[in-house]
């Protein structure tokens, strides 16, 4: 793996196309670079290609043509298992193992990587505190937790092995609006502390603007194409009709700027 300067691209999409069969292209002509340490929000409607883009990064999907590179290497050249262990993955349904305690769930990747037990226990404690949970919850089972608590455990689990990259697929979508807003703001603070590279998929404009507000960018997807990449301010001022459409859809009764 070659040495990369501070702001180099840690993830690159090079003319990537992804097709499910010969008829349907879920993603076309994708050229995108994610800088080390930045937060990139993938914004778009359902079916616009943003989740597909995310899954191409940790090799859950493989490009039909073009190349996806992580840390300078094509995802096809990586051992997919090794690649995924270096990338934190958080999904909307969380997917905590119901038969594992919270502690065992969070310590999953360190466990399969063979960390000594004491180190795992320490790390789990540290992470639960980091995501705002009482470490005592470690001995509980996921079914005993609220939705918000479960999602926090999901984030803790993704951070356990201290991966440089974090992929998040509409992670807060299933939460009620109050919990959701709470957890968004906490996550924003966490992002800035940890300085990881985060790729965050959402269809919620307000969430996207918030998470990109600290120097991040927003990539707008529509019908399998990346329409453009903007900072939060650029997005709000963009003349692109699609952006305008997106903004208009959210204007109903909402105060976007304050979000």
């Amino acid at each position, binding site marked *: 793996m070659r040495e990369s300067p501070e702001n180099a691209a840690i993830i690159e999409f090079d003319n990537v196309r992804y097709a499910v069969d010969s008829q349907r292209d879920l993603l076309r002509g994708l050229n995108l670079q994610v800088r080390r340490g930045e937060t990139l929000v993938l914004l778009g409607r359902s079916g616009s290609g943003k989740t597909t883009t995310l899954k191409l990064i940790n090799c859950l999907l493989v490009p039909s043509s073009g190349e996806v590179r992580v840390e300078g290497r094509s995802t096809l050249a990586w051992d997919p298992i090794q690649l995924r262990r*270096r*990338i934190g993955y958080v*999904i909307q*349904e969380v997917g905590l193992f119901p038969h594992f305690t919270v502690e065992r769930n969070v310590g999953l990747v360190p466990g*399969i990587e063979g960390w000594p037990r004491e180190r795992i226990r320490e790390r789990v404690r540290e992470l639960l505190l980091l995501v705002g949970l009482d470490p005592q919850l470690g001995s509980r089972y996921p079914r005993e937790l609220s939705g918000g608590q479960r999602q926090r455990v999901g984030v803790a689990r993704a951070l356990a092995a201290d991966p440089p990259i974090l992929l998040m697929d509409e992670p807060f979508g299933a939460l009620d609006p109050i919990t959701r807003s709470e957890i968004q703001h906490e996550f924003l603070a966490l992002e800035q502390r940890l300085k990881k590279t985060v790729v965050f998929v959402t269809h919620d404009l307000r969430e996207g603007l918030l998470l990109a507000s600290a120097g991040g960018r927003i990539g707008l997807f529509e019908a399998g194409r990346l329409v453009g990449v903007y900072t939060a301010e650029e997005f709000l001022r963009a003349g692109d009709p699609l952006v305008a459409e997106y903004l208009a859809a959210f204007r109903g009764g909402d105060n976007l700027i304050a979000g």
Partner: protein
Amino acid sequence: MGLLRFFLTNHVEVLELTGEHLWLVGVSMLLAVVVGVPLGILLTRRPSLNKPILGSANIMQTVPSLALFGLLLPVPWIGARADRLTILALTLYALLPIIRNTHAGITGVDRAVVEAGRGMGMTDRQLLFQVELPLALGVIIAGVRVATVISVGVATIAAAIGAGGLGEYIFRGLAMVNNNLILAGAVPAALLALAADVVLGQVERRLRASQ
């Protein structure tokens, strides 16, 4: 009652036949699990094998048990001894519920859990042994339970070809028109089936509760 007196006077033989019965069912269930569970797992990895595997197991089930015994008689080595033949037939009968339940149990695991596991870098083997099998265990045991109860029943027919077991009493009783004898075979067999159902049902319930 005449039946109770029969059991008391012939308790050695009753225990012997019950032991034979348990042996026939026990060995065949073990074989069925050893073959059936991996086949069920294979099915989840290669769905194209669905038709051949489930199809064959289904055919075994549709053949009436007595006919299956008859069909297997000419087979070399197996057909030579009644107990071998019986064990093979019982195993074949038990395969369908076990394969099908293993497959259903694994595919029934929450997709989000499997996706999360895979996305975090678990290998297929780790996913199988740490996530899918533990979560599918309740459903798999349900299949074992059904198969065991069926086996206890089919094993009574094994006496027709001389394999022993409680069916001995039933066939002897039928031939001699002796009700007590028939019951002496039928009642313990029914109790065995019930016991298997209850015990395995408890195991199943305990496993499902922990999810």
